[in-house]
């Protein structure tokens, strides 16, 4: 009997180049069949990508001669779930149902199941309690995905659904009834749906295709047939490999079969434990056997190929390169039941092996994922310093991959993650999600997020869209929230445009007419884009979410419409998004009654995201670096590189968490003959060995991820226990170099703390007109006046701010002003009715837009009204006239030919019966103390008095100092009157203080307007407001820490 030709290429060696050499050198065929050429052979490789790489290598080896390449076919091997590369065209079964259609139909079935579930028999929840297992359409999609995984697992292992009912233990049957009822979707409804559509189940079809392939090979031997790189993880693939190995012209090349492990260890993988008597119910089959890196290969060899390990021949260079590393890795990962043999090796021998095998391994134990990514980037970048050297990061953690790609940007090294990007996270996918989120109720923040996306053009050049967005933002989105919806926004825009005034925020006052036009046009275009895709229009009731996707797609087309004269080619992700919408449009999801996936509009964004998330975009070859790669585990399987970085060696990442699904527990899976989730761990362990066998290897982990402490990967724990502290710390020391280099990169050069700013724009720039409140600011924080009046900077309002206590103050001021101005001389008997009506009117906008604020503010106002009316009647007893909101202005010459205008608006000016005048200020905030007034930090009232005494108020004039009065509104007392008087210990009269402030103001104006004094930031920190809008600009935090002291004096 001719010996089967089964080969292996040891880990750490370049798999595909060695395979190419063996193909051209004839080692695989042993010269059979005589005279056959490479062009007649057929070669199966795990993926299309590997196929392309092999074709490239073979062409290289042919030199300049043109050659006919062999037939290279993909086996379609994947981690989990379904192959996209499967050789499906070779099946006799009807075409497989498209994946999206399958997911959507199952989603619909899940929804129907939940709606029609027999509550009395299956659910133990009280009547009226909603059944929330699919809590939303997105949940139903996820459940459908889980169900698909179970269907595929059963199909892959060729297990019948009926076995499921039998697997449920009697004592647990009550508990699992619900689950069994659920999976009935898959085995009762699903086959009928497939039959009706003339489609087949993808996993079963793949099995059939592989089996058909195996049969054909057995019947019609042609040229050389080679299967290389597969571990035979799917039974059908394993059968195909066996069929190839059984042919006289067949050869199988295994990746990294462990020939170093001793016999006892080898026997303990899989076989020994499977017959072990130590099994207990509930503990399942000893799961460690599945977690061994060689489990799949051993199973393939023994169960399918019927070979001993010794019969496998080694391909590749015969020199000893890498043998110690392979021996070390083999021993570290030996089956748990044989780890007692570690102690049989003497500590010295172990240290020798650890040093020899561990030479070239560096271990990075970073504090967190950020440090890990930076250290990896440094390690990759280091390779680039040497011409021609290549480096690869291998990691199952796509987040880490993204971080590393970003860190490499420091050196302008652009690397795309070869494992691909989820459509949901691609630019086009993000745009689609933003549009769906915005469409729910067009909140200002959501609209801005959408418009900020660079793909939004709305038929304009992007620059024009950006200008329109800025105009809309300043005109309507900042400040108090407009009424919801695009229509509300359009109204707000029109109203604000009509009501433009000098009291508008400065940024809005700067908008030109064309800006307002642009903003309006932008809203029009948005309204057109969202005409059929708006949560406001479609809010009530249940919608067909699949059909809604059509409207979503239409909206996106409008949003991304290019300018007429700038046509644009769609990018890869945009094409993928279009493809998703096309498939959604053509997917036949409805059942006989026309029911599809149902949900409310607000649930659509999550539903869409759950579909977009499972689509993975292939990276663009152009975007990947020639010498640096970032790979997932699958892509790294036939790796060929000079330096490898293994990233994310923490439990639940590498290896992944071996979670069972929500349907079957571990014992039930075993009973059904399904492999336990630990099989994935075995696969990642094999990936670990394959990658770490590269001579120059760096392993990284992080002690914390997302702020949570992690547990190191079991592979590292094993290594550490085996090699001992000495060898381990040597490897860690080699790794810490990269962290140190990374830390040095991020260590900033020392920066001198800035000095307190005191800009001197020159006397001419001093404003020639300021209000009494601005003077108060000039005293307390001159820099703010510089920023506001010289630089003309004004803070933008926040986006869609809810009304603040300042707005409440404005409302109350308006009510009181309206009240007094209607009856300037005598209060009518129905004054309380009048005040109530004014209050109701003024608070109405709050009541409609912010009922929860109204609930707090209105009762307080109701308590305030009677107290205020008492006060008002008391005041009116000897008031001749009352003037509200009186504007005042005086001018004085502070230098020859230079005048300065002081302005001020008095809340209320009363002319008393005795001819005296009183100025009243309503305060809903803090009332300044008499001391603060007297020393000049709060000169608002005294300066108003000065204006009055110089005849600056039209309402009233008096050469004598007026009575100055605060009415404090709010607090426990509701309303309190406080006269402004000289404080204790100040011998001056009010007239003296007013005069002093008037003179002080003149001095101040001369300081800035004549001498050109510097506008100091916060000269008296203790009297400045705790937060002021210009503090950041003045870098207050920086210089105040440096301890710059105060100087000067107030008015």
């Amino acid at each position, binding site marked *: 009997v001719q010996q089967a030709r089964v080969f292996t290429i040891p880990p750490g060696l370049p798999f595909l180049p060695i395979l190419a050499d063996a193909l051209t050198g004839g080692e695989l065929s042993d010269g059979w069949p005589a005279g056959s050429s490479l062009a007649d052979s057929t070669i199966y490789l795990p993926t299309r990508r590997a196929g392309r790489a092999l074709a490239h290598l073979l062409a290289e080896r042919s030199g300049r001669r043109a050659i006919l390449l062999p037939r290279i076919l993909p086996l379609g091997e994947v981690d989990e779930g379904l192959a996209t590369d499967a050789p499906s065209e070779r099946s006799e079964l009807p075409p497989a149902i498209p994946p999206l259609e399958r997911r959507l139909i199952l989603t619909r079935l899940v929804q129907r199941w939940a709606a029609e579930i027999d509550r009395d028999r299956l659910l133990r929840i009280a009547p009226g309690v909603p059944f929330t297992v699919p809590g939303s359409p997105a*949940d139903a999609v996820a459940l459908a995905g889980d169900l698909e995984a179970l269907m595929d697992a059963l199909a892959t292992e060729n297990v019948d659904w009926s076995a499921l009912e039998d697997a449920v233990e009697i004592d647990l049957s009550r508990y699992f009834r619900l689950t069994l009822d659920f999976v009935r979707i898959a085995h009762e409804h699903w086959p009928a749906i497939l039959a009706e559509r003339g489609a087949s189940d993808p996993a079963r079809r793949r099995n059939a295709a592989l089996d058909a392939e195996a049969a054909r090979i057995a019947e019609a031997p042609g040229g050389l047939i080679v299967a290389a790189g597969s571990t035979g993880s799917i039974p059908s693939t394993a059968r195909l490999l066996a069929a190839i190995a059984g042919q006289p012209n067949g050869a199988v090349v295994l990746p990294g079969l462990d020939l170093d492990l001793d016999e006892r260890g080898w026997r303990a993988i899989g076989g020994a434990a499977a017959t072990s008597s130590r099994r207990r119910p509930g503990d399942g089959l000893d799961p460690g056997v599945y977690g061994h890196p060689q489990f799949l290969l051993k199973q393939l060899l023994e169960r399918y190929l019927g070979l001993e390990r010794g019969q496998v021949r080694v391909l590749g260079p015969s020199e000893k390169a890498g043998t110690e590393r392979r021996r070390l890795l083999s021993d570290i990962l030996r089956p748990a039941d044989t780890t*007692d043999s570690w*102690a049989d090796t003497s500590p010295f021998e172990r240290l020798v092996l650890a040093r020899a095998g561990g030479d070239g391994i560096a271990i990075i134990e970073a504090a967190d994922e950020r440090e890990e990514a930076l250290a990896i980037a440094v390690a990759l970048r280091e390779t680039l310093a040497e011409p021609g050297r290549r480096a690869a990061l291998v990691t199952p953690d796509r987040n880490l991959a993204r971080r590393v790609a970003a860190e490499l940007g420091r050196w302008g090294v652009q690397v795309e993650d070869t494992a691909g990007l989820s459509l949901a996270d691609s630019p086009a996918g993000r745009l689609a999600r933003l549009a769906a989120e915005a469409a729910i109720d067009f909140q200002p923040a959501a609209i801005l997020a959408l418009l900020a996306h660079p793909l939004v053009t709305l038929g304009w050049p992007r620059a024009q869209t950006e200008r329109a967005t800025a105009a809309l933002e300043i005109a309507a989105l900042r400040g108090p929230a407009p009424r919801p919806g695009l229509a509300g926004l359009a109204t707000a825009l029109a109203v604000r445009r009509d009501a433009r005034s000098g009291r508008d925020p400065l940024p809005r006052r700067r908008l030109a007419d064309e800006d307002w036009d642009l903003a309006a046009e932008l809203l029009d275009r948005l309204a057109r884009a969202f005409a059929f895709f708006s949560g406001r229009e479609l809010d009530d009731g249940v919608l067909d979410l699949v059909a809604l996707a059509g409207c979503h797609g239409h909206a996106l087309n409008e949003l991304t419409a290019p300018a007429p004269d700038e046509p644009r080619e769609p990018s890869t992700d945009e094409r993928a998004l279009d493809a998703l919408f096309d498939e959604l449009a053509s997917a036949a999801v409805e059942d006989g009654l026309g029911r599809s996936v149902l949900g409310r509009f607000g649930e659509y964004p999550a539903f869409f995201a759950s579909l977009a998330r499972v689509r993975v975009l292939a990276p663009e070859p152009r975007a990947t670096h020639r010498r640096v790669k970032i790979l997932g585990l699958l892509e790294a399987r036939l790796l060929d590189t000079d330096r490898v970085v293994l990233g994310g060696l923490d439990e639940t990442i590498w290896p992944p968490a071996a979670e069972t699904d929500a349907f079957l527990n571990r014992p039930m899976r075993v009973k059904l003959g399904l492999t336990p989730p630990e099989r994935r761990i075995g696969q990642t362990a094999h990936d670990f060995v394959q990658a770490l066998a590269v001579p120059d290897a760096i392993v990284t982990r992080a002690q914390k991820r997302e702020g949570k402490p992690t547990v190191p990967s079991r592979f590292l724990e094993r290594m550490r226990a085996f090699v001992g502290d000495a060898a381990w710390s040597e490897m860690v020391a080699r790794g810490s170099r990269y962290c140190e280099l990374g830390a040095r990169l991020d260590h900033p050069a020392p920066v001198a703390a800035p000095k307190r700013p005191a800009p001197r724009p020159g006397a001419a720039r001093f404003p020639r007109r300021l209000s009494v409140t601005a003077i108060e600011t000039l005293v307390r924080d001159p820099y703010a006046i510089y920023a506001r009046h010289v630089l003309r900077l004004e803070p933008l309002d926040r986006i869609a701010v809810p009304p603040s206590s300042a707005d409440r103050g404005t409302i109350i001021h308006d009510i009181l002003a309206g009240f007094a101005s209607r009856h300037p001389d005598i209060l009518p008997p129905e004054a309380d009715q009048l005040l109530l009506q004014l209050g109701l009117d003024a608070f109405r906008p709050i009541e409609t837009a912010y009922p929860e604020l109204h609930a707090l503010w209105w009762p307080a106002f109701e308590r305030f009204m009677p107290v205020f009316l008492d006060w008002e009647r008391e005041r009116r007893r000897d008031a001749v006239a009352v003037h509200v909101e009186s504007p005042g202005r005086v001018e004085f010459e502070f230098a020859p030919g230079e005048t300065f205008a002081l302005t001020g608006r008095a809340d209320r000016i009363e002319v008393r019966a005795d001819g005296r005048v009183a100025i009243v200020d309503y305060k809903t905030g803090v009332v300044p103390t008499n001391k603060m007034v007297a020393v000049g930090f709060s000169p608002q009232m005294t300066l108003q008095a000065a204006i009055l005494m110089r005849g600056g108020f039209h309402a009233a004039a008096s050469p004598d100092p007026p009575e100055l009065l605060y009415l404090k509104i709010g607090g426990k007392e509701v309303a309190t009157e406080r006269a402004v008087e000289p404080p204790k210990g100040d011998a001056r009269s009010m007239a003296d203080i007013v005069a002093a402030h008037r003179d002080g103001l003149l001095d101040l104006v001369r300081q800035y307007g004549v001498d050109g004094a510097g506008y100091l930031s916060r000269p008296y920190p203790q009297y400045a407001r705790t937060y002021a809008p210009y503090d950041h600009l003045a870098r207050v935090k920086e210089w105040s820490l440096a301890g710059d002291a105060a100087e000067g004096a107030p008015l």
Partner: protein
Amino acid sequence: VTSGLVVPFATARDQRRAADPAASAWVSANAGSGKTKVLTDRVIRLLLAGTPPSRILCLTFTKAAAANMTIRVFEQLGRWVTLDDLKLGETLAELTGERPAPALLKAARRLFARAIETPGGLKLETIHAFCERVLHLVPFEANVPARFAVLDESKTDELLALARGRVLIEAASGAPGREDLTAAMNVVGLDASGDTLTGLLDAAVRHEGVPSDPDELRLRIARLRYALGLAADEEAGDIRRAMLEDGIRPAEWPEIARELRRTRSSTDAKRADALDAAASAGRPTRGSRLI
């Protein structure tokens, strides 16, 4: 255990007793006195006695403690793997108090790899993580969304604010059936509004202990009164009266006023007037109940 630190014999013995898996134990001890060591030892002794690692559940309160425990268990078991028979024998004797049989030495060496390969991981976790895991495993039976995620802090705040707003609206609207809410709002609104009120509501929600059972409520109030040192019938008016009268008695106030007038200072004169007015005024009325 830090090397060089000598653990007193009695402590070592107590720790061993508490770590004996055959005994139920309650351990209360100071920080740094070895509670985690006892717990780790207990897990290890369970493993040593042949318990499958997947059948051990060990709950802690913080994520850091859970990760730390797992790492410690692995570290200790990892050290055993390569110890020679003599040293491993000593270590096991120290742990269990018994000389180990030769077969146990081999088993002990295998524990490390077996423990790190526990299906689904060694279950040393926080209570929250445990509950979350159970719910994820049986969503159908628990009636929870199949792939639920726990709310983060900002989302929680957002939802709380929404709920708070709804309650306030309900209170203000005086909706029929919610008169109690409106009444409560009118009382609270006098003392608190704005941020104070929302803070108060949040505190009430967080301490779900505001009881609806009137007896329970009376009991809680009695406890609060006790904590404040209030006598059974003491009320706000009593406190106010005590503040005024229990110092200088009202009968003496006119006398003090006379003294003050003799200083001829206008401020003192004002004070004297106030004192006279207070003395001639009636006794303060008994105010509302304090709590």
